[in-house]
Each structure stands twice: as C-alpha cells, then as structure tokens.
C-alpha cells in the first residue's frame, strides 16, 4: 500500500494543555493523545443536540460512548468523522487541527443501520474496499476469517441477516488502514456468544495498535469491551474515565457501569 505520513509524531505539541481530559488520565497517557475533541456543539433549529462536548482519545484504547437513545452518541461520531457539520468546536489529531475535509485520512466511521450496495454480493463489496486500499487476497481472507463472514460471501447484501450485515461492516472497517475506527452500535444484532467473539476481535485489533471509539447503548456490552467511557446524556458529557474512575467519582465502590451511569445522569 502507498501511504504517506502527513502529520508525523514531531508535529505533536509535547505539553499541550488539554481543555478537558479524563480526570484520571495518567501523564503517560496524555502523551499518547491521538485525537482531541474540543467543545463541539451542534444544534438543529432551536434544539441543542450536542453542547460543549470535549474528550480525548488515547492511542490503542477502546473508548465507549455510552448513553441512552437520543443522547447524541451518533451525532458525536458523525461530527468527529467530519460527515456532519458542527456549529462550534475543534478536532485535533496529535495536537494539530484536523479539518473535516481531512478527517477521512485518519478516521474511518462505520455507521449504524447501513447495508451498503445491497444489490451486490458480499464478495463484490469486499473486493471494492480491498481494491481501494490495495489489500492482498491474504489480508482479505484474514479479515473475512476473523469476523466470521465466510458463510455469506456468496450472498447479496440485501439477503444478509442483521448480524451478518454488521459483520460485513466490521470487515470493511478492518480492511481500511485507518488508525482510528469509529463504530456506531457495533454489537447491535449479535447474541451473547457473537458479541464475545467480536469483543475479542476488537481487543486483538487494539493490541495491534488500532484505536476504537464505540457508541453503545447496551451498558453490559460496553463494560465488557471498553477501556474508558464517555457518559453522554442530553447531548452533554456527564463523565469520562475508566470504570474505576467513574466509581470513585460517584462513590459507588463496586457498582456496575449501569449503576454509575444512573448515578451520573
């Protein structure tokens, strides 16, 4: 593949102050801030959908955006991905401003509820993405195998079940070379066993160096996979941190994510 570095490490401001960082983020983690989202605000007519949302994403972590339906999770992801215009705010990649028109160079967003190219077969859709990113047959086969898409390769996309449709999207995401993947409701349509498979897959990818931001409304799933959480309600950030951080903040020493979420929102 022919990739060129655009914003190398030297471009990272070494001691850039974070407008709003997870309360417990270590100094080491601060040095590895991959993406900083700073005070993004979005309104539809008179209704504020996002209000002053700020957070940072550490390299190699799995960050969960948690919240009920209508909390603004999808809006955050689309705003960060640059496919939804925002009213105010800034996104910085390793300290450098990353304008919306260039977000696709660093970030790939897998939206929820999309069945791309429904008249085409799964193989053809995968071929398209693999061709764009010059993936080899082996790389494609690895992605297919890791996601468990083999049984439906011959099917048309419109004939896929919800679970396989989700697997197809995940495979497309794995075929991209982007260091940061944003995924909207990645476990929707999976049963418990399948969810665990996908969790393991995401973990393995994170270990390889990929960073994930997952918007999840099932708190149990989120607790299972995410390193840190952003609790979102009514378009506002109500808490950021690991489960331990959030427990400490709420004073619920052994509570689940659900307990913490209810306490903070």
């Amino acid at each position, binding site marked *: 593949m*022919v*990739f*060129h*570095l*655009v*914003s*190398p*490490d030297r471009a990272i401001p070494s001691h850039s102050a974070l407008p709003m960082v997870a309360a417990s983020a270590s100094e080491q983690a601060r040095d590895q801030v*991959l993406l900083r989202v700073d005070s993004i605000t979005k309104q539809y007519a008179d209704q504020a959908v996002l209000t002053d949302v700020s957070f940072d994403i550490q*390299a*190699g972590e799995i960050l969960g955006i948690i919240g009920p339906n209508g909390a603004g999770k999808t809006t955050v992801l*689309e705003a960060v*991905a*640059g*496919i*939804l*215009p925002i009213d105010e705010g800034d996104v910085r990649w*390793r300290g450098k401003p990353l304008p919306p*028109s*260039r977000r*696709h*160079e*660093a*970030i*790939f*967003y*897998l*939206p929820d509820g*999309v069945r*791309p*190219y*429904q*008249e*085409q077969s799964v*193989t*053809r859709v995968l*071929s*398209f993405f693999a*061709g*764009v*990113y010059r993936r080899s*047959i*082996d790389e*494609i*086969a690895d992605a*297919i*195998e890791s996601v468990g898409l*083999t049984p439906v*390769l*011959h099917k*048309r996309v419109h004939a896929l079940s919800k679970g396989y449709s989700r697997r197809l999207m995940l495979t*497309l995401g794995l075929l991209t*070379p*982007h*260091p*940061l993947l944003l995924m909207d409701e990645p476990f929707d349509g999976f049963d418990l066993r399948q969810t665990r498979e996908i969790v393991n897959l995401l973990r393995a990818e994170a*270990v*390889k*160096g*990929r960073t994930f931001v997952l918007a999840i409304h099932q708190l149990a799933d989120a607790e299972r996979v995410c390193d840190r959480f952003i609790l979102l309600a009514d378009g506002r950030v109500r808490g950021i941190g690991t489960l331990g951080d959030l427990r400490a903040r709420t004073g619920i020493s052994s509570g689940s994510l659900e307990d913490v979420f209810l306490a903070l929102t």
Partner: protein
Amino acid sequence: MRLPETFRVQNAPLRPLLVKELWDILGGRALWTMLLLMCPLIGYSFFQAVSLYGEASTAGLQLPVLAGSLSPLDGVLVPTLGAFYVAVTLLFPFVAIRVLGQEKESGALRLLVQLPYRSSTLIAAKLAAVLAAWVLSSIPSLSAIVIWGMQGGHLSAPETLNLLFGHLLYGLLVGAIALFAASVSESAATAAIVTLAFTIGSWVLDFTVAGQPALLAWIARLSLTQVLRTFEQGLLSAGLVVGIGAAMFGFAALAKVWLPPGVQLRDKVIRSIAWVLVVALALGLTTQIKLSFDVTEDRRNSFPAADQHLLASLAQPLVVTVNLAPEDPRYADLQRNVLAKLERALPKVSIRLVSGRQSLASNAGDDRYGEVEYTYGTRSDVSRSTSPREILPMLYGLAGVSPPAPAAGGDYPGYPLVAGRQVALLWFFVGLPLCIVLAWWWSRRLPEPIAARSRRRFTHEDD
C-alpha cells in the same frame, strides 16, 4: 504497538471505484427495465419511419426528380432516434439518479465519502457510469441503424456520427442534471422530480414560448431539446458543443459541492452561487463562438460551394434588418434558407429583428411589414423574398462583385429505398429483448474469485 498516524492514500486506484460504479449500474433493475421498454419504443419508430420512407421512395424510384428530397437522415435516422430522445428524457433520469441516489438512501454514501478520493473524482466516476449506461441504452438505436444499413439503406458517416454525438451530449447533460438532483435531494423520488422538471420543463418551454418575441424566445432557447435540433439539422456547432460541455461541467460541479455531507448548508449555497455565475459567464461566452460545420451530404445548411467561397471573401459587414414578427412563417423560412446560411458564410453579419417585440397581428397595417433590408457597406437594398436565388444576386450587386458561375453536377441524388420491415419487428420485439434478458441474467451472476480463494485457503488450513 503501531503508532497511529494520519494517512493520506496517494494514487488511490481508480479501477475499483469505476468497477464498483459499473456493477452498481448493472446491478439495478432500472437500466434493464429501461432497455426493455426501449425495444418496442424504438422498434416501432424505426418500423414507422422505414414504412413512410418506403412509401415516399416508391414515387422517388419512378421520378428521379423526387428522389433528391429523400434523405435517410430526415426520413429514418432522426425519427428513429427521436424515440431514443423520448426514452432518454423520461426514463434515463431514473437510471442516472440511481448512480448516486441509491447510495444516499442506503447510507452507503457515508462510507463512500470517507474513501481516499476527492469529491470531484467520485462525481467523475459517477459520470463515467452514466456514460456507460448511456452507451448500453443506445444499443436499440444503434441496432436500428445497423439494420437499416444491412437492408441497403444509405448512411452518411458524418451525418450519422454527428447525430449520435448530439444524442450523446444530450444524454450526458440529462445524466449530469440527474446527478446534481440526486446530490441535493434526500430521496431518489425527489431527485426524479427535480430532473424531470428540467427535461419535461424543456418541452413546456418549447410548446409555450418558442416563436414568441424577445425575452420569451431567449428563454425558449434554454430548452434542453434545442440541444438536439442543431445536430438533427446536420450542423456541428462548436459553440453548442462547448456550451453543452459547460452546462454539464456546471451541473457536475454543483453535484460535487452538494456531495460531502460534512459541509455547512451556508457554505454549499455560497459555492453553488459562485459556480452558477461561472457557468453562466461561460455559457455567455460560448454564444460568441460562431464556428460550425455543415456535415450533411446535401449541404442543406450552406449555399452552393461557389457562393460560399465568394461570400467568404466579402470583408465588409452585412447588416440585415428584418421587418417580420418572429412567429411569422416567412421569418422561419428566411431564417432557414438565407439568414442562418449567411451567418455561416460571411465573416461579419448582424441581424436585427425590427418587430422583435411585436406580434404578427399588431403589424397587420404596416406597409413595410415583410420587408428585409440588406445593407453592405454604404449600399442597401430591400427584398421581401425568402429565397437565396433572389437574395444572393442582390447581395453580389451590393458588394459590386459578379455572381459565381453555377457549378455543374454535385446535386444531391437522394437515396430512395423500399426496405423490408419484418426483420426489424422480429428483432425489436423478440431478438433484442431476449438478448437484454440474457445480459441481465449474466449481470446477476455472483462473482467467485475471493470466495473461492478464501474457501480454498480455509480448506487447506482445516486439512
């Protein structure tokens, strides 16, 4: 651990994008349904055209003087491709809209805009898909031309290619409008309404304001159907070609502006206004391009060659003042027989329509109505004729030159032909639809390579 960086894919391959667009066009039902509908539509038009041409040819074969008026361009090609024009106007927008509308409705556009391509590249790829769809949809028309040729019908290559080129430009223009409509609309249905507003709106312009004076006549010239008329008359006009290209570019540029979902509405509107102004300026400039070629075999858009040469040597400006209402049939005659040819032959011609703002009825009592004044240099003369046989000698008199000696021969012989029609019926109602259904079935086959290779790989691993 790999340190994530920002990446830019340079030289992202175009082939996967083009292949995807092609399969997207072939994968839908819209193209194949349109092709099937075109078979009887174009087939019947061809059948009727050949029938009428055959009837006229019967007389032409008996009286050679009548044969000279039998041109396959007017008698067969234009009416047959007229049905193609109707199909492109009414059906092709649905195929072209699908190129973008399907991705918009399914949400796949949100994936597409994240791929390492510029918006302009994405729009260009989609225009290429529209071109491919047009090529496929022209198969029934092309097959009619082939059948005509196989039956012994005369085909003049410049005339035929020029006419096909005109239809290609018209199809691409409709496709560009459809792309623009799909990019600004949230649903394919809305995009279809927007596109049909352009195409069917052109018919309304033709029927209601064509032939009307002044501003209305100018508005009528914006009709898309005007695009084809010049080509159907056997003219290849550089100004028209560049103008259509500018319009296509404009619609494509607007589609590019509206494609990315992450841009504020206000910015899109500002950029759109800028592009509209640029294209309007470009269109204005194209009206100044007077270069055109008469590609007809009978040279219907030109005076005889000797006159053309002599007129081209008249250096002074010729001013023609026409005292006729635009809707007057005599004006149409004068325009077709004399004025249009003069504009092409003389280096400097200006035509003034004195009654441009008046109607035919309001000129009833004007004695000078119907007069056409020709002023060359300081000399002028008046005529009521619409025939070049009277006007050209008058012009030569004004210019003080002798009329050229009439050239012997070179008359258009005409090509009468009474052709069989049953072959065409069989082809358009049985053979071609069957071929289209087979091609549709072929396009629905599922690809094997990745599946087969990965399965083989997994099988080996299992072993």
